[in-house]
């Protein structure tokens, strides 16, 4: 029988051996293990998402058909006309872009395929803000694809699994995007922020030229610049509500108010880049 001192040290000895073994374990093995653990848990997470959909379905079933039709009609009233105008504008703009590209012999911009996806889980904490969506490599989702929603840019796909993907939101502290102020072409830096409880998500803007001003009373809209090739240009990021000159006096830094709907996402659209034509 081992002495009490050895007996007492046994758990720490085991911990040391496990730690050492884990450090020398090949990365391939760890990768396989991670994928296996994820894919084992994924079906349960997805089934929770389907259960929520079923719950919504039965909640709607309790209302009469007329009530639902009236609600949809109210929502659609005016939207149809607005969409029609936007469609016409889009067609005209696309034709203009193509004409200019041909004229200036520019390489054509990246085209995207829209892939709508339901949100399975939202994972927001002090260190990261991510959502899991119900589409994966089976549906052609690729790592790095931009993700949008009704309020503008939602984030970027960071992990792709067989039937699910993970999207890092723009409110995540680790996210950095090249942006511009609406109506200005000079690039600035956007970074996600730490989100305090019970308030709308926030971000940070830096490297802002000194002649740009924004206050809470007169906010400026921040959009993607298109630099870096991940996000198409002109997509809304948020509203800059404060700007202060840096200590070095060269640039300004400020706060960005993000859309509160970012915290309540139920559906997003993944923009899957299409392979460019030869």
């Amino acid at each position: 029988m081992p002495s009490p001192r050895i007996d007492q040290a046994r758990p720490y000895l085991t911990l040391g051996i496990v730690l050492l073994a884990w450090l020398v374990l090949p990365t391939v093995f760890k990768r396989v293990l991670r994928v296996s653990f994820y894919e084992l848990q994924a079906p349960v997470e997805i089934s929770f998402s389907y259960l929520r959909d079923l719950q919504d379905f039965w909640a709607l079933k309790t209302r009469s058909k007329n009530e639902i039709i009236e609600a949809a009609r109210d929502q659609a009233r005016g939207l149809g006309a607005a969409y029609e105008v936007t469609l016409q504008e889009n067609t005209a703009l696309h034709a203009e872009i193509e004409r200019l590209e041909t004229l200036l012999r520019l390489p054509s911009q990246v085209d995207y395929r829209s892939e709508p996806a339901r949100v399975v889980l939202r994972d927001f904490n002090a260190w990261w803000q991510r959502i899991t969506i119900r589409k994966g490599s089976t549906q052609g989702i690729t790592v790095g694809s931009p993700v949008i929603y009704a309020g503008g840019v939602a984030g970027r796909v960071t992990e792709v699994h067989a039937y699910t993907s993970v999207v890092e939101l723009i409110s995540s502290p680790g996210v950095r995007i090249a942006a511009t102020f609406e109506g200005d072409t000079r690039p600035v830096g956007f970074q996600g922020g730490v989100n305090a409880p019970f308030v709308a998500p926030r971000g940070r803007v830096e490297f802002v030229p000194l002649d740009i001003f924004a206050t809470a009373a007169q906010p400026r809209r921040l959009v993607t610049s298109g630099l870096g090739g991940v996000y198409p240009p002109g997509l809304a990021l948020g509203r800059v509500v404060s700007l202060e000159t840096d200590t070095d006096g060269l640039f300004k830094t400020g706060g960005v108010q993000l859309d509160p709907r970012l915290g309540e996402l139920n559906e997003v659209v993944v923009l899957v880049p299409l392979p460019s034509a030869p």
Partner: protein
Amino acid sequence: MNRAVRQYVVITVTALGLALLMRVCNHHLAPLHISLGAGGLLITYAALRLHAKAAMAAAFTIGLGLDAASPVPFGQNALLLLTAVCLVLGVRHRLPREELAVGIAVAVVINLFLLIARTLAFADAWPDPSAGWLRVFSDLVASQVFVALIAPWFFSLQRHSLVWLGADSVQTPVTRYG
């Protein structure tokens, strides 16, 4: 299947089930920007009352399950949980570990240890550290209250599952380390 293996299976399955429920709970709390963490609770029962081998193996497996669903280096949670179990195993013979209050206190302390360890690993990415610590503090308060509230139910669930599979520690009182 021997008793230690059955204990390992019960603890791992129930803990991963709770971790999944926590993720669903956090999904609904996301609009409020509050996040609950109950990592400490997942391993407390095993660390206090079960065979050391079963407790350590379960902690490592549960940690790998948590790692797979988080953007952390794979193995980080596993090693943190394993360390926490080792620390509890070192002191458990001095504690009245069958007491519910002791179980809750240990769960709360392990939870605090895990949250601080993770925060120290990720604090560099924060653009505003003061806001980051404020957020961590609010999450910590909410998590600790939540852990204290659900701990009696979760310990009971694990104990009944162990009894149901004939792997309860009451039938074979645990010695100091196993």
